[in-house]
């Protein structure tokens, strides 16, 4: 019996073969099995997309049409403490444009076994506070610039420092690492910074003071808010702000399931295939949450198009469109003059292979019925001879 199934291993995709193996009732005779496999093979062939089918346009229409029914506002969650999430059409635009700066970057941090159960709540809370970014301005009360000897004095708030478990030494370390050119002196309740170089102007001191305020003392850069929530018997941490590279390095974090909604970061840390899957998941999530129904294959095609070059490129005139080989196609999308002139400067040849160019010059489009050409060579008729 397994022989008959293995005969079809190159004719049917592995998942279907797996499904058949699982669902096959015991004691099926060989002839019946062969009939089953033949019928499955026939169905599979019928379900394949015909060559020449303009899948791109159909995918665009299938995603665009429900897009017109999506609200342009952000919904407000019924849940009390959920943060602002971009939903609906603005989120889809954000993903498809390949934007690196998101409106509401968010991470879902899954925790390893002992923490996820939530037995030690204090541990969870301390972990959350560990991740949350605290900058110098959060733990200091006052910044003063002493004009006389060009020093900056920072008064520290002892209570806040105790909350996040920080000592003066750590602060000094952080400052010296992130702000060059200053000596830091620890005065128990305050820190004094003195410039190393002899010449110093008030402007420099002011700039240094502003930079000081944003120095990360503790936590992961970029994470502005942390929220532990319980989801289906385990505790996870939802953060506002995203920094996948550093979060995955924490030992309490389950790096198999933690994810972010920033596609660019996923590409950077986990690779292009993961980014492609993340695009599909994110877009599908948005469309499903609006109650609309789009087949995932259309979204898969769009994600493939964005990732085909090896990096995530948005569907803009800088992204996917700039990869197109045809001058006329690029010119017909946006900024025509620029593309035409640049093409003329290097002597580009447009092979008129695709849809847009052939519509422009009124030739049959190489799609569907236009994909075939005649193989017969016309012979002059006998009469003319």
């Amino acid at each position, binding site marked *: 019996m397994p022989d008959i199934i293995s005969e079809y291993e190159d004719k049917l995709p592995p998942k279907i073969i797996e499904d058949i193996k699982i669902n096959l009732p015991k004691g099926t005779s060989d002839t019946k099995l062969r009939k089953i496999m033949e019928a499955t093979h026939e169905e599979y062939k019928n379900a394949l997309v015909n060559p*020449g*089918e*303009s899948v791109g*346009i*159909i995918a*665009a*229409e299938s995603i665009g049409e429900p897009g017109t029914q999506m609200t342009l506002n952000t919904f407000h969650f019924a849940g009390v403490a959920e943060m602002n999430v971009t939903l609906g059409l603005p989120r889809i635009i954000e993903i498809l444009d390949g934007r690196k700066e998101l409106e509401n970057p968010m991470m879902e941090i899954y925790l390893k076994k002992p923490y996820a159960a939530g037995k030690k709540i204090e541990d969870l809370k301390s972990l959350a506070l560990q991740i949350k970014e605290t900058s110098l301005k959060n733990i200091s009360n006052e910044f003063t610039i002493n004009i006389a000897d060009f020093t900056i004095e920072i008064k520290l708030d002892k209570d806040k420092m105790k909350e996040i478990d920080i000592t003066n030494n750590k602060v000094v370390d952080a400052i010296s690492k992130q702000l060059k050119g200053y000596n830091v002196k620890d005065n128990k309740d305050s820190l004094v910074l003195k410039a190393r170089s002899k010449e110093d102007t008030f402007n420099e001191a002011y700039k240094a003071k502003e930079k000081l305020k944003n120095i990360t003392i503790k936590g992961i850069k970029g994470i502005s808010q942390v929220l532990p929530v319980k989801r289906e018997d385990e505790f996870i941490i939802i953060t506002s702000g995203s920094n996948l590279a550093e979060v995955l390095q924490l030992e309490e974090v389950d790096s198999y399931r933690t994810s972010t909604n920033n596609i660019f970061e996923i590409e950077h840390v986990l690779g292009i295939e993961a980014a492609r899957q993340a695009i599909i998941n994110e877009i599908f999530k948005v469309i499903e949450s609006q109650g609309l129904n789009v087949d995932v294959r259309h979204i898969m095609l769009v994600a493939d198009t964005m990732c085909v070059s090896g990096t995530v490129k948005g569907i803009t005139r800088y992204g996917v469109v700039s990869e197109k080989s045809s001058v006329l196609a690029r010119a017909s999308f946006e900024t025509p*003059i620029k593309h*035409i*002139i640049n093409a*003329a400067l290097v002597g580009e*040849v447009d092979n008129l292979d695709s*849809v847009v160019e052939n*519509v*422009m*010059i*009124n*030739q*049959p*489009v*190489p*799609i*569907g*019925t*236009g*994909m075939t050409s*005649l193989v017969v*060579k*016309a012979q002059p008729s006998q009469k003319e001879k």
Partner: protein
Amino acid sequence: MAEVYLNSKFVGNVDNPLEFVQKLRDERRKSIIPQNLNVYYNERANEVLLETSKGRARRPLIIVKEGIPLLTERHIKQLEKNEISWSDLIKQGVIEYLDAAEEENTLVAFFENELTLEHTHLEITPLAMLGYCTSLVPYGNFNQSTRLNAGSKNQKQALGFYASNFAVRMDMDVNLLHYSQYPIVNTIMHDISDYSKHTSGQNITIAIMSYKGYNMEDAIILNKGSIERGFGRSTYYRPSVAEELRYAGGLIDQICTPDKDVKGYKTEKDYRFLEDDGIIYPEAKVKEGDVVIGKTSPPRFLSSMEEYSLASSTRRESSVNLKHGEEGIVDFVMITENEEGNRLIQVRLRDERVPEIGDKFTSRHGQKGVVGLIVPQSDMPFSANGIVPDLIFSPHGIPSRMTISHLIEMIAGKVGALAGRYVNGTTFDAEPEERLRKELLSLGFRESGVETLYNGQTGEQYQAKIYIGSMYYLKLKHMVANKIHSRARGPIQLLTRQPTEGRAKEGGLRLGEMEKDTFVAHGASLLLKERFDSDRTVVPVCENCGIIAVKDNFKNKSYCPICGENVEINDIEISYAFKLMLDEFKSLGIYPKLQLESKY
């Protein structure tokens, strides 16, 4: 201690803000302080805001003291006799104007019977919150607000009687309803605005039922007999204008019947209606293409002057003729002079528009619809009394739109028509439905408004009883005769050689980018090519240099302007818009080289 702000500027503090505010208001009502001051006490922020700035929207309300309005019967009697006026009431402190902020401190009652000790003001009439057109909708408080908006908009597009001196006026695109009537169900606004002097619609009998599926999706069915008796009949007037313009050099246009030798002379048949002076006579029946005013112009100086030009050189023809789709009877010819002293001729055309399939009608409740079918009177459903509806309205238009006033107007109209009186349907203040139903019962009809109707074609009684009543229906200016448009082949633009745009220029309909996408999605490649063939041209292309060559039809030879005569030149078929694009590239200094490949 409350802070006091005058026009958003801080002016001081007061210890007891409530007393202070009350005192200010009392003094304002006695006219001791100016009456454009409005006082608002914000309890939460503990601030008193005084506003006198210009541009605030304020509305008048009747002042109520201890549950009794200050506007008494005596005041009303004095107003009726014209002894006192509106401004007297303001000065006496009976009515005051409140802006949006001060209204926050008030409790306003809609009607006198709901006044309690806590109310501070009483609405003069709740109808005042609606504008003019919306207050013309009867029983408006039974409608969804969106529908009131739509009803208000539709009434502005209705045909009617716009001025009684229409016969001597030359207005563009005028519609006049032949037999307009005053609505049976009307509101107080109809009386205030003298609606009887410029009525717009007609009271007709309507039944709400489905009839053979021709009134789906908001379509309506009309009774042919009603149309023949004058329902919805209107006339359309449109003037054509010609002016004798003066040009440089003393040359002037001339309004006359053009001679046969002027440039651009049409056929003799086109000028057949013109009299000796070149102007058409009234009551001539004209169609598209017929000339109504003959005019010749001197030759333009742009064309090259020949050396031996005769003095009475060829004038151009510039007559005014009727455009595509226009037709009618000449109604009125006006010969006059404009302010510069040039002779001005205006010819007004009149066309009778009998309702046909495609004309748009509406009730006053935002229920507009297009005529779907015109049924002969004998085929319409009839009641035992012999009453036949003029219009059949589909019931599907009621549930999602929630225009209950449409249904109530039918009962009210039925009562009014049978009892011989007008029914007051003012929004918020209408005759209550219960009373109308009792009256309907006393007139001998079912109080639910339904009747037993019989099928006009078979005579069978309909199983369900049909809701039938009388309503005021308006004809809108969107008539199908002004919109219908078709083109097989026709004029093309000069620059792109593509079909022209617009109904007036006999244009084509654009197959836009998204429509092109549907053809691509179907894979119908050659169909797409055929659709975009409207500007197809055959151009010769030089094989050597790849630019468009010249084809000399007289000598039957092709040559390339760059490479000369001894090169291979092939013809290709492209759209003219593409050839235009290549020309535009050449003008930028870009060399678009075409590489040809044999199709086979």
